[in-house]
Structures are given as C-alpha cells and as structure tokens.
C-alpha cells in the first residue's frame, strides 16, 4: 500500500522578482499529483540545496529569468554533490536561450523548458525521470 509521492522543490534563485512562471509550474505539478514544496522568491543556492535535502525531494525545479542560469545551475548541482545528494534531479525553465541548453545539460541539468512549453510536457518528463532515478536506487 506504499504510495510514494513525487516530491519537488520549486524555487526562484537570485534577485529577479517575477514568480508567475514558478507558480504556474508549481500548480501544474500539483495537479499531476506531486507534492510541491514552494520556497518563494529570492532564494540563495544554499537555501535551495538545504531545503531539497531536508524535504527529501526527488527533484528541484528552478525558474530563472535573469540570465544567470549558468551560474545557478552550476552552483546548485555542485552544492548537491558536496552534500552527497547528486541523485536529486535539477531541471528548470525561464528565459534561457536555446543555444545555452546543451552546456546546461552537460553540467547535469535534467531538462530545460523554455517559454511556451505546455506544463503537461514538463510534468510527464519529470514523472519519467523520477521513475528512472528510483529504478536505479
């Protein structure tokens, strides 16, 4: 009767104050049956990493509009590795140029969803990614 819910942190690192995208995705993941820990605006990398570990999540979704995506993805992925939590999936969305996506995925980002992506695409991808991760455990 074990019902293992998918748990996700949705966070907005840095200083830009537009969180509509993060809220839309949080709500969509909720409607896909996931438990979404919403941490709000202006999170530091350490806060995001600590939250993910305390909440024992499967994934972190970050929304970045500021252009600092390389910096934040790198810092979060490294932060997780330092705390022995490399298995947590990191994905994101926001205003991220297509040309930057390959270097982000190389860094370890699971997927990047640009503006206009249907939210169901994101939820379906995450469900599959988590299933794969759990199989590997």
């Amino acid at each position: 009767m074990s019902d293992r819910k998918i748990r996700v942190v949705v966070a907005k690192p840095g200083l830009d104050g537009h969180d509509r995208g993060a809220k839309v995705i949080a709500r969509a993941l909720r409607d896909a049956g996931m438990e979404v820990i919403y941490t709000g605006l202006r999170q530091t990398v350490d806060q995001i990493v600590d939250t993910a570990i305390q909440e024992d999540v499967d994934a972190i979704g970050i929304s970045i509009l500021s252009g600092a995506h390389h910096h934040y993805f790198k810092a979060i992925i490294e932060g997780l590795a330092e705390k022995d939590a490399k298995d947590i999936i990191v994905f994101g969305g926001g205003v991220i140029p297509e040309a930057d996506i390959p270097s982000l995925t190389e860094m370890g980002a699971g997927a990047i969803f640009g503006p206009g992506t249907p939210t169901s695409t994101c939820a379906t991808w995450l469900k599959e990614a988590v299933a794969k991760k759990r199989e590997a455990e």
Partner: protein
Amino acid sequence: MIEKALSGDVRAMARLISEVENETARSEKIMREIYPHTGKAHIIGVTGSPGSGKSSLVNRMIASFRGQGKTVGIIAVDPSSPFSGGAILADRIRMQEHSGDPDVYIRSMGSRGSLGGLSKSTYEGALILDACGKDIVIVETVGVGQSEIDVVKIADTVCLVLVPGMGDDMQIMKAGIMEIADLFVINKSDRDGADKVAAEVQLMLKMFHDGTGWYQPVTLTSAETGSGLEELSDTIERHRRYLETSEEGELRLKRRLQWEVEEIVRRRIAKATELAWDRRQEESVLENLYRKETDPYRVAQDVLVSALDEVRSGQYV
C-alpha cells in the same frame, strides 16, 4: 540509515521520515528501533484557521528557541488535493531564514487524505525528530476550521492561534477546536479588534474554568513585528513545567500511548481487510452479490475472518 539519522545526519533523518510517510515495508522496523530514543523533546502543536499567521508565528518561535540554544524540528502540514493527491506545501516560505541553520530542521507534509488537520504520519515524523535529538518539535497543522483537532492527540502543548474579526463570543463558546487549546494566541495584534477577542476569550475562560489545574493563558502577538513573542515562549515554558510537575503530564503521555496503540491496531486491521477484500473480489464475489446469491453482511464477515487469519500469521509484523 537509522544509526546515521540518530547521530544527526540530516539526509538520513529526512529519508527515515519519507519511509514512514510512504508506509514502506521498512517503516514499522524504523519506528520500533527509534522508539527507545524518543520522549525527550517538547512537542508543541500550533493550530488555527488558514491565514491566521501560523507559519510566521512558528518562524518567530524558532528564533526564540534558537536564542535559548535549543535545537528545533518543525513539521508543517498543508492540505493535499482530494482530486490529484498533489499538494502545494508553502509553509516554509515564512521560515526560509532558518534553512541554513544546522540546528533547525523543517519538513513539509501533505495531509494525504487525513481530515483531522494532520497527516497520518505527522506523529511518526515528530517522533523521529525527537529521537534524532531535537529539543523542541513544532507541529503546524493545516489551516483548520472548527473540528480538526488531531493535534491534541500528539502535542504536549497546543497553541491555538486566533485573529481579530473571527466572529462574536458565541464562536468562542462552541465545542471542538476551542476546547483543545493549552494556550490561546491572538495574532495580528496590531489590527483593530485584537484586544476585544482577547478579552472575550479571557472572559469565557474565567466563566467556565473549574478553578483547578492549568489556567489557559491568552497572549497577544504580532508575528510581523515580533511583539508578544517573548511572552509566548515564557508561557510555553510555563506549560512545560506544569506538565512536568503535575499529574497532567503523565496522564497525557498515557493517553497518547493508548491512542498510539489503537491507531496501530486500526491501521493493521485496515491493511489486512483491504488485502482480504481485494482477494475476495478476484473470486467474483461482486457478481455473486449482484445475483443475490449472498449478502453484504456475510461477505463482510468472511473478509474480516480471512483478514484476521492474515494478522495471526504475522505477515504485518
């Protein structure tokens, strides 16, 4: 993993809570092993209606307990969707300033179908935090109405958070949530009407108090400005000492143990009957019922008997 958690490893502790929350095969073993380590923490329940400022208040409470050098664990429950089963867990937004503090652990839980203001695993989660060495465990309920009172079963001290504008004094006299408070907190005290609510609560308490035991204090707070927080933490400490020095503490612990055993029994029977019923359905019992070859009472009796056989065979230990 259990040893790692008991020695303070955050990831291991978080994992233990997930195992229990997901009711995995290991969850019972985990609870049995941590059980001897429990009983040291002071469990504080914080309950009240949606938007009354519980999370912000908890955030302030964390700061004052940390100021006293105490370690703090928090379990904050938000409602799960009855449709998708998903949830937005957003209590910790108000507490993020503490997320870097290694002596503060915050865990969000979805209510996952429970209707009493907590989730099925909230108490187990609190016990794990207790066993892993947190001095204070704060349990924040979902935003409640009048009758979600499960927190009273698991907390040593129940704080009921009220705000101005909640209605007249008849609301305060009603049964249910108003009966479970060890202390009343009137939050948003910077707003009009806070003094009036406080006075009404105090009057009610005076009118109906039997003159013995604990006298529920009323504290005015503003989680926004921090006013009244020192008084609140003094009051909580006073209640803790009262429990220690009166018979009430022991009485409550025994009541909690009784409830815990009953709860485990109920869960095991529920699990066993569910399995037994599933098996019966495979044997086309519904078809037989439909054709009136048997009746629901007879089927229920059969299901119970085979469920109890399974319990007896020890499959659930």
